[in-house]
């Protein structure tokens, strides 16, 4: 007889609230279900009621960890929509800050993953190293989280020479910290024991569920928006897309580990070829033609998609966001089945879930105030129609 084991809505392994219903036989998971929606805040609805400039800060708060990816994607979409050219320097600055964000997000993820398997010392050490990046981000953008760095037509802040110097020094420190993570993660027998062959996701499943980002790349799906649909200056820089074909939690660990090194490489190159010039295009009155635009950005967790429809006013008619975690969460049910309950938190953590990103898919009947939330199955069925 399977017993239902709830994980959430409040659970220490989840830094946010979501609800997993695991049906277990003994310690083995036979069925998994996921209920999201606790974080639903109606961002798309709100975005259609604010001006474009105010929406930048709203979109940043879709997710606090990948906030810069959200604001970059929003600004790029609006720039497409209004045909605004972004200065070269601003593009470089955007790449640097985006990669810094990827660094801090991956360090954060490593720490959380270590915490989940109970290796608190490694968690503390990794978050200690993460603070170096946070301090750098704070000195660049003025805030640790939700930077407010982007604006339509460029960036809001410029790098001073001293900041450039501090990033160059910081990159070396971070590289050493990344070496420490590599030595810890790859040489610890217990970590290997916990992560190897756990939460397997085959390439077929990955393609069927269409997972994105490091989760997809760990299952041998060769996808990276930075290369496939280059934005900013990624096409001018030299870097690699990390692919692994094992498809288990350890592969996701290794992919993220190597992405840290690639990010450091990108930051160094971008700093080297940083040209002088203005950081944003002067836009007096924003003129929006009645049209639509979309843009994609590779957030730390995968492909982030924005679609904006304008009606000619300074308020967008519709903003549609598809976040990476929305796709990756669907893969969890496939990953969890057959594993032990003790591994469930690690598997959940391995996709780096971000429920604040995900929870915008509620169907709300505003008239009678009833809120009905669709399960992922219903939603996918609806999409198929």
């Amino acid at each position, binding site marked *: 007889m399977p017993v239902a084991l709830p994980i959430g809505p409040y659970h220490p392994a989840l830094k946010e609230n979501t609800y997993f219903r695991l049906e277990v036989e003994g310690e083995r998971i036979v069925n998994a279900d996921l209920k999201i929606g606790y974080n639903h805040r109606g961002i798309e609805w709100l975005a259609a009621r604010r001006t474009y400039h105010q929406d930048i800060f709203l979109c940043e708060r879709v997710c606090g960890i990948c906030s810069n990816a959200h604001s970059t994607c929003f600004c790029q979409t609006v720039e497409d929509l209004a045909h605004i050219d972004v200065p070269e320097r601003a593009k470089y600055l955007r790449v640097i800050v985006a990669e810094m964000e990827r660094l801090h997000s991956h360090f954060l993820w490593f720490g959380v993953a270590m915490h989940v398997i109970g290796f608190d010392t490694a968690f503390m*050490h990794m978050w*200690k190293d993460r603070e170096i990046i946070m*301090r750098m981000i*704070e*000195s660049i953008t*003025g805030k640790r989280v*939700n930077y407010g760095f982007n604006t339509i037509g460029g960036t*809001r802040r410029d790098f001073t020479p001293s900041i450039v110097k501090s990033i160059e020094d910081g990159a070396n420190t971070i590289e050493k910290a990344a070496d420490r993570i590599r030595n*810890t993660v790859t*040489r610890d027998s217990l970590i290997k024991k916990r992560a190897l062959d756990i939460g397997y996701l085959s390439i077929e499943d990955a393609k069927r569920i269409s997972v994105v980002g490091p989760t997809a790349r760990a299952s041998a799906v060769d996808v990276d928006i930075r290369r496939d649909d280059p934005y900013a200056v990624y096409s001018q820089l030299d870097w690699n897309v990390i692919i692994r074909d094992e498809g288990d939690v350890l592969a996701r660990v290794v992919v993220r580990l190597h992405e840290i090194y690639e990010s450091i490489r990108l930051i160094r190159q971008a700093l080297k070829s940083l040209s002088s010039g203005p950081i944003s295009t002067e836009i007096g009155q924003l003129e929006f033609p009645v049209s639509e635009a979309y843009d994609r950005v590779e957030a730390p967790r995968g492909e982030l998609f924005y679609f904006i429809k304008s009606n000619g006013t300074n308020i967008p008619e519709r903003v549609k966001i598809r976040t990476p975690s929305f796709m990756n969460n669907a893969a969890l049910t496939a990953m969890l089945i057959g594993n032990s309950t003790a591994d469930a938190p690690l598997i959940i953590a391995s996709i780096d879930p971000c429920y604040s990103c995900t929870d915008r898919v509620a169907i709300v009947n505003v008239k009678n105030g009833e809120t009905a939330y669709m399960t992922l199955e219903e939603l996918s069925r609806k999409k198929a129609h």
Partner: protein
Amino acid sequence: MNRQTILESFRGFISPKTLAYPRQPSVPPDGFRGKPELDAEKCVGCGACAQTCPMGAINVTDEVERSIRVWYGKCSFCGRCQDVCPEDAISLTSAYELAVFDKNKAAAGIKIEFESCLECGKKFFPARQLNKSFERMEPILKKRNVSYEELRSLDGVCPSCRERPEEFSKRKLFLLNFG
């Protein structure tokens, strides 16, 4: 167990990385966006900050004076107000310890005096904003040979007085001259 963590642990054992925060202040880096503060000397009371604030944290209320209030409980410290302020009257300081017991106390506000109407004496518009706009217009006025007092006598009138026929014709005449 692995060698890297053991080494790192002993390094940490000898020199913990913890900041001595509550005893020693922790100073944020330059350009940190902390508590926004209003400068009562510089502010003209135009309300551009309130208009642009994405969160609606800045409130402008008109009674006998115009009061501008920033509520930190709703502020996201994005700095848009600082960007748009024409007088640099609002600025984000480096203060960040804002914990309070009463959420309404986490706020800063200033009052802007109103100018009295030249006709009826009713207080109707922030005095400093009016003066500032005249100041900005001065080069144009000189070019057009219009005296400052003339403009002042026209614009120093409250909206309800302006609707009176004699005021209306005066303004029409002025605008015709002005071109």
